[in-house]
């Protein structure tokens, strides 16, 4: 089965450039603005879109994404509305892959079977669920695969060669390599260590490898893009949203451009990565 994610990576391989994967939290700072941001991302240079499903207790996230989740929840975002947002996006874009990322409880509360059916119908392509390691694959991973959704796993600096096969076993679409042992948006990754890890993982899998956690600037994105198949940017984008808000925390005219502007410069960085490498 070929998914939008597979097709997108095949096209990027042909174009010989890494993917820019952008993360924003659904409903941040409000549903309408968030949908506008989503719709503007592909033209600004996002190759894949990760949409955060806000959760009250984001244990793997740093302050920036924690705050984004709280803004979204405060504005009334729910998992149901997140799926509606994907559906609305899909009405105008049938190509850009959408990956929902978050924590298990809101999905479990929604009902796993119903969630998978509704997500597929809305046009979701893949899932990243932070607190579902391979040991819990029967919960959602295997049903997701059966429903035709990619289940994208995180590998981390603590995932050694002994453990890697378990992590890769039911992973599809791409592998998300977490560049630091830590939470999102904090320490900057060490490019050499990331390059070594990506090389090591490539020995075990033919899947594309995207690298995220702590990548903030076009230069960092270019450096990571030289060694990986994709670069994930999250905290920097939600920070751009936060700094664009007015004193009451509401969206301004500057909110959508703040995100698209940053995405454009990041896309330039990522696209320059291989050109520099090729010289």
């Amino acid at each position, binding site marked *: 089965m070929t998914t939008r994610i597979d097709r997108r990576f095949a096209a990027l391989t042909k174009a010989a450039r890494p993917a820019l994967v952008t993360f924003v939290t659904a409903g941040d700072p409000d549903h309408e603005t968030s949908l506008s941001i989503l719709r503007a991302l592909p033209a600004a240079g996002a190759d894949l879109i990760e949409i955060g499903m806000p*959760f*009250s*207790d*984001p*244990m*793997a996230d*740093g302050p920036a994404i*924690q705050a984004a989740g709280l803004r979204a*929840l405060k504005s009334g975002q*729910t*998992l*149901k509305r997140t799926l509606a947002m994907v559906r609305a996006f899909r009405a105008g874009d049938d190509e850009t892959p959408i990956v929902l990322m978050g*924590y*298990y*409880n*809101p*999905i*479990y*509360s*929604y009902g796993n079977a119903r969630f998978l059916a509704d997500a597929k119908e809305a046009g979701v392509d893949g899932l990243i669920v*932070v*607190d*579902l*390691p*391979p*040991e*819990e694959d029967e919960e959602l991973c295997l049903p997701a695969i059966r429903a035709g959704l990619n289940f994208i*796993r*995180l*590998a*981390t*600096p*603590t*995932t*050694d060669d002994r*453990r890697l096969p378990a*992590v890769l076993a039911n992973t599809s679409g791409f592998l998300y390599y*977490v560049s*630091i*042992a*830590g*939470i999102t948006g*904090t*320490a900057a990754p060490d490019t050499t260590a990331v390059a070594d890890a990506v090389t090591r993982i490539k020995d075990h899998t033919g899947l594309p490898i995207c690298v995220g956690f702590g990548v903030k600037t076009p230069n960092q994105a270019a450096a990571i893009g030289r060694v990986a198949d994709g670069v994930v940017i999250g905290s920097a984008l939600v920070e751009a949203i936060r700094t664009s808000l007015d004193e009451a925390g509401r969206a301004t005219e500057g909110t959508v451009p703040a995100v698209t502007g940053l995405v454009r410069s990041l896309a330039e960085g990522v696209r320059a990565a291989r050109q520099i490498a090729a010289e």
Partner: protein
Amino acid sequence: MNEQPNSFRTGPDERGRFGLYGGRFVAETLMPLILDLERAYTEAKNDPAFHAELAQLGKHYTGRPSPLYLAERLTAHLGGAKIYFKRDELNHTGSHKINNCLGQILLAKRMGKTRIIAETGAGQHGVASATVSARFDFPCVVYMGATDVERQKPNVFRMRLLGAKVKPVTAGAGTLKDAMNEALRDWVANVETTYYLIGTAAGPHPYPAMVRDFQSVIGTELKEQIMEAEGRYPDALVAAVGGGSNAIGLFHPFLDERDVALYGVEAGGHGMDVPNGHAASMNGGRPGVLHGNRTYLLQDDDGQILEGHSISAGLDYPGVGPEHSWLRDSGRVSYVPATDSEALEAFQLCTRLEGIIPALEPAHALAEVIKLAPTMRKDQIIVMNMCGRGDKDVFTVGSILGFEL
């Protein structure tokens, strides 16, 4: 749901499950560590030297066994069953928390870890963690909700005296669940060096089973003590349940003694009919996944975790240990709520009648004893776990009763 297994004492299974509950719902970064911990704990459990060292510390450092005390005046006052207290509030550091901390610090030492982190609500587990860290020369960081830092000042000062760093957590409502989130974030960033000393019988496998094992000394001692005092087992055991470590420690050795009725008392806060006004996850929540395990949780329709409320910082947690969730569904243990005001009344009654100031946590258990004892015959026996002393709560209680401290 009520099919009765041959034994209630065989869990968890190899996946860390108690029926539907438990498991290992953690980020990949932590997974190798959780598996290491499981291996290390299994080795320690089978090592007589580990048990010998723990027993030695229990006796000479903690002061075990804790006495079994017949509360004569309370018994006479209530006019029903004979009431005993298992007095874990007399332990070093003032609560049952030290039992678990000693076990885990020995494990941290075996694993070659060099730094301890812990979360705390009321501060009892924080104090116990800081204590064992001082005793075994580990640097220790305790995460504590900012709201709890405010309402548990004496314990915050104790932890600092013991050399621990207390980090106030302002996320969420600044209570125990937020402290646990922050401790997990620290752990992910410091996996190589750091041992996470979880204070309750919850979290990813193997924590619920491990904490239960370390706390089961309470119920094991009781079996011997009550046989000596009464020549038989009690008719009922009563314990407060927040995360549920003192309760599971009391109950577990008695789970297969089917004639012993077991009561776990949850925090009813302002009342079970007040939305988000209590912390009784098994009476007012539904199953979900948080902090590494599936268990009963207080949550809204979208699966967002609610903060809950209790007068007792130690019970103010939206979840509960997974084994309790399983025991609830199986019907082996009855979980009942007690409100803030019932606990407050029990707190004062116990203090005046027995000269024992209970912590607000066991005051909830006592509130159930007050309801239960008069419905039982005088030749029947209740044992309540007095799992903590109330010194830390005098400011909270004082401000409610209008005393200037």
